[in-house]
Structures are given as structure tokens and as C-alpha cells.
């Protein structure tokens, strides 16, 4: 079991920061001694949320993406936020294959990936104020893996 820990990262909404964000969160999560699969799940979910902030939140404009993570016991909570335009219809945005930007060849799978690879996903959004995606994942304890 790991003691409570917290991190916060802020960076400009540039697409080359997508890999930076997922590597930082994965390194932070490694304190929980995750399996390669669990680490891969976290990296993918973070990548999806940060990409959404850049493409949809800021629509390629400049803004800050804020990534926070909390480790408590065997669980990680990751919060990815932006101060961008917000999502008009969250239910619609979360439908598999729905994309508001089909011209960009987006698959519309971002939220579905986050939901599948994490245990819990909560999306809060306010028009003109921004979006916050909260995801949690409980890591299997070492004894469960044996």
C-alpha cells in the first residue's frame, strides 16, 4: 500500500505535449507497482483526454491543460482539465464513434477508450468555461496477481 501522493502539471495546449503528459502520469503511477497492461491503460486514457483538450477544448488555440493525479492506497485518480469552450452535449460526445470533427479523421473513440481502460470516468463541462475529465483506476494488489 502506498502513502497518499499528489501531482499537478500545467502545459500549453500543443500536440507535442501529449506524449509528455502521458509519460509524466505513467511515471507517477509507477509508485503503485502497476503491471505493463495497467500502465498502458493509463497512458492511453491520459493521451485521449489531453488530445480532447487540445482539439476540442481549445480548438488548436493556445491555452493551458492542467493534469492532476492523486494516489491513495491502491487507487489513482487523474483529473485533466482545460479552460476552453466546453462541451454542449456531454452524452452525445460520449457516444462511441461520435465526433464533432469528422473532417479531421477523428475516430470518435476517445471517451470510449477512457471508459474501457479506466474503472470510472466523470466528465464535467461548462460552456465557455472549460471541461474536466476525472478518471480513476484501482490497481490489482500484488497478492491478487499471483
Amino acid at each position, binding site marked *: 500500500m502506498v502513502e497518499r501522493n499528489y501531482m499537478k502539471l500545467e502545459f500549453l495546449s500543443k500536440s507535442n505535449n*501529449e*506524449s509528455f503528459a502521458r509519460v509524466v502520469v505513467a511515471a507517477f503511477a509507477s509508485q503503485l507497482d502497476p503491471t505493463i497492461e495497467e500502465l498502458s491503460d493509463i497512458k*492511453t486514457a491520459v493521451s*485521449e483526454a489531453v*488530445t480532447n483538450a487540445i482539439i476540442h477544448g481549445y480548438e488548436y488555440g493556445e491555452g493551458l491543460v492542467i493534469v492532476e493525479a492523486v494516489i491513495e492506497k491502491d487507487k489513482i485518480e487523474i483529473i485533466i482539465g482545460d479552460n476552453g469552450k466546453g462541451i454542449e452535449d456531454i452524452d452525445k460526445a460520449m457516444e462511441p464513434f461520435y465526433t464533432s470533427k469528422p473532417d479531421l*479523421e477523428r*475516430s470518435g473513440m476517445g471517451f*470510449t*477508450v477512457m471508459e474501457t481502460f479506466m474503472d470510472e470516468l466523470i466528465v464535467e463541462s461548462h460552456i465557455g468555461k472549460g471541461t474536466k475529465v476525472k478518471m480513476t483506476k484501482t490497481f490489482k494488489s500484488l497478492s491478487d496477481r499471483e
Partner: protein
Amino acid sequence: MEFSMDILKNYLIVKLKGELDHHTSEDVRKKIDQQYYNNNLMNIILDLRGLSFMDSSGIGLIIGRYRNCKERKGRVFIVSTNPYIDRILKMSGLLKIINIYSSIDEAIKD
């Protein structure tokens, strides 16, 4: 992101290496399309064995190439042996329309 492209008959063979995300996929997409249309090709083989990471941007890239090939009555083939990449491919439903192979030779023979 490193990648190389070869042409064999009417196949464009694309070998991707590194991490395929939103940032890297845009450049890959432009270069694949350029080679595909400039050389008047029909099929595309995407070799994902060198990838260490792929998110849904990779799914978007594959679906887009599938559409282009379909328009020309061609096909897209995926070569992959990485279980983490196979998981996202499977989740996206892509494997209902595109087959996955363990080598380039196997894809061409099909």
C-alpha cells in the same frame, strides 16, 4: 515517430515505429496519402509491429486509409503482434472490416 514506406506491386507498405498519437498521426497521414495517390496504388499494408504506443488517433488514421482504399477497390492490411495495440484495435470494432496479420508476407499472400 519514425516510419518508412516501400512499394511492392500495387501495395504501399508502411512500417511505423515509436508512438502513434494525435501529434504524430497527422504527418504520417499526409505522407501515406501522398505516396498512395502519386504512385496510383491500390492496397496499403500498415505494419504496426514497431509501435510502442497507439491511441484512438491511430484508429482514425486506419479508418481514413481504409476509406481511401475502398474507393479504389483496394484493401488495408494490418500487421501487428503487440497485445496492447491489438486491444485498442479490437475495442474499436476495426477488426470486423480489416484483417490482422503477423507478418507482411502473410498479408500479401491473402
